[in-house]
């Protein structure tokens, strides 16, 4: 069993900057957890605290049921893959992977067996004698992963492992990491990224961080469909969700709100009667806005101010009179709509989101 449990974990640097405020997480064995968030949110710091490279200011970190706050990194049963690969430039691929085993004083045969097994798994066997500088970026990243595998850690830590790779290689390596997880179902993996696509595709559960706080923890689609607050709603999904201020006209089993500022929208969201006539936020994802023929079919009408044709989809920036910001509507395929055209937009009521004045979601 290799659960990772963080209880009231904080990180405060000596200059009183609070990087992480009270993090509580319960990671189960075999889970693939992704820490995601904008730069400076503390996700890498959190990972480094789990690895032991960074001290924990307060709170406890448990790995495998044992408090490891003061256990040296090497004895925590973890292995880390760095963004810059961090290969030892003066050692061959073989020695890079064997180093930790040599330090642990394993027998030559054991080391050889484990290194070759890992090399085989990662298709590195032909390169074992090469120095890192003679490898491509993707190969280097695989060596870094191999170096982690040979230690047979309970927990794998990945610190933005794909950000130094080009786009095509990133997709390929992402799949390799997914396959790796598949082949080692018992290992816990914690993965840091700022890329929400990586987070969505790899994670069993996403931990979305911002400003040193956990915003939401949950399976990727949960975060997509039921964001806990405006931040999560806007961070997950591309382009991000349209969120506009609104006023609650009628609360209860079904909530009616007015946006922009006099368009009334009926949603199936349940709200407390106390909420009536309060200010709130209304959200709808660009991909849930559909262009319709007539004003009667839709609920929004506006002028197209900008068109982005991506081939597989078209993004329309629609300025609705009364709203400050343009709404983005994502339509499949290519459309014959130009800048300056007037369009009508509709949306399924169950795809709508409502957030209270503190930007927290009203639970449905």
């Amino acid at each position, binding site marked *: 069993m290799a659960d990772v449990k963080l209880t009231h974990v904080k990180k405060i640097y000596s200059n009183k900057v609070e990087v992480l405020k009270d993090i509580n997480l319960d990671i189960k064995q075999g889970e693939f957890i992704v820490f995601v968030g904008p730069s400076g949110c503390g996700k890498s710091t959190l990972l480094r605290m789990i690895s032991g*490279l960074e001290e924990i200011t307060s709170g406890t970190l448990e790995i495998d049921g044992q408090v490891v706050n003061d256990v040296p990194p*090497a004895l925590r049963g973890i292995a*880390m893959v760095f963004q*810059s*690969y961090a290969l*030892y430039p003066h050692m061959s691929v073989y020695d890079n992977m064997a*180093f930790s085993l040599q330090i642990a004083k394993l027998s030559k045969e054991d080391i050889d067996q484990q290194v070759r097994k890992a090399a085989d798994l990662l298709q590195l066997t032909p390169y074992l004698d090469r120095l890192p500088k003679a490898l491509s970026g993707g190969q280097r990243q695989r060596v870094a992963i191999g*170096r982690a595998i040979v230690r047979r850690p309970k927990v794998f830590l990945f610190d933005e492992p794909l950000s130094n790779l080009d786009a095509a290689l990133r997709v390929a390596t992402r799949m390799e990491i997914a396959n790796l997880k598949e082949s080692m179902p018992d290992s816990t993996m914690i993965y840091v990224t700022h890329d929400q696509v990586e987070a969505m595709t790899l994670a069993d559960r996403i931990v979305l961080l911002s400003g040193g706080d956990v915003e939401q923890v949950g399976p990727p689609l949960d975060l997509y469909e039921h964001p806990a607050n405006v931040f999560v709603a806007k961070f997950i999904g591309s382009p991000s969700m349209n969120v506009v201020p609104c006023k609650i006209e009628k609360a209860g089993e079904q909530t009616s709100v007015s946006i922009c500022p006099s368009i009334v929208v009926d949603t199936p969201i349940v709200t407390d009667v106390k909420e009536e006539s309060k200010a709130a936020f209304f959200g709808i994802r660009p991909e849930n806005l559909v262009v319709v023929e007539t004003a009667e079919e839709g609920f929004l009408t506006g002028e197209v101010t900008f068109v982005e044709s991506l081939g597989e989809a078209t993004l329309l920036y629609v300025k609705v009179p009364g709203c400050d910001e343009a709404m983005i509507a994502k339509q499949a395929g290519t459309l014959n709509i130009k800048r300056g055209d007037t369009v009508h937009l509709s949306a399924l009521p169950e795809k709508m989101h409502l957030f209270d004045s503190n930007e927290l979601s009203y639970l449905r």
Partner: protein
Amino acid sequence: MAQLASALMTMIVGILGCVVYFYGSNILLDKIFPTKNRPAQDVARNLRIANNVRPWLFLGPAVLLLTFYLFYPVIDSIRLSFFDRSGDEFVGISNYVWLFGNDEFFESFQNNMLWLIVVPTMSTFLGLVIATMTDRIWWGNIAKSLIFMPMAISFIGASVIWKFIYDFRSGGDAQIGLLNAIVVFFGGEPQNWITMPFWNNFFLMVILIWVQTGFAMVILSAALRGIPDETIEAAVLDGASGVQIFFKIMVPQIWGTIAVVWTTITILVLKVFDIVLAMTNGQWDTQVLANQMFDWMFRGGGDFGRGAVVAIVIMVMVIPIMVWNIKRANAEMEGR
């Protein structure tokens, strides 16, 4: 006063001369190969020629001076080594025959070898250790400045300082030398350190180590900072201890720089002269090649032929190390 004025005058004239030369010659070049208001074809041709000539305008004076001050003395030393004491009469290889039968030469050669082994090793080792340590403590930069400071002292100056440290007063006189003061404080007998055969060589070497450690430290400290932090963190995660990280991860990554520092100090050591001259002048078995050369050429010896022979020996020893050093340094540069 008059001296100061003339020195100042020389400086001003020299600097002005340089400015006039570089500025003037470049303007002249642009005049001869104009690039303004010309047909495009001429402009391209003139630009190409001017760009080929310009480096020589800048390099020219240095190349000329180096030829004169380096190349010519080498050639003339070789010539002198085959001539008699006044440099007039050709004597074949008799100077070389004399040298290889000379006891003092073997003493110098042995001492030089000793210097060669001890000084570069100690300076590089201490420099490396200090560079590593000072990177970890808050007062590291102060310590570094202090350790680097002897670099600013001339070898003669350093020798004078260390003469006070090794100073010995016979009889019941109070010891003013630091080392003897310490020895006496702990109840020991004061010693005349620099006349103690064999060991006095090491007392002289300490001076050069004291001076050169700062050099090694600065260069190696820069190299150490060039090591990516992640490789060290990766080694920490791999379970390596501090000592293992130092020897297995850090040192191999800066091996090239260590070699350059080592050989640079080695070349310097081969030419060691000032310290021996100032401290013992080669007495009490501390003679070295450079001092022996100086003795024969300009002092009591007054023999240009024999002096030149010793000079040639030093040069032959330096050249291979120098070549290797330059190659290493170039390789290091390319790595950047």
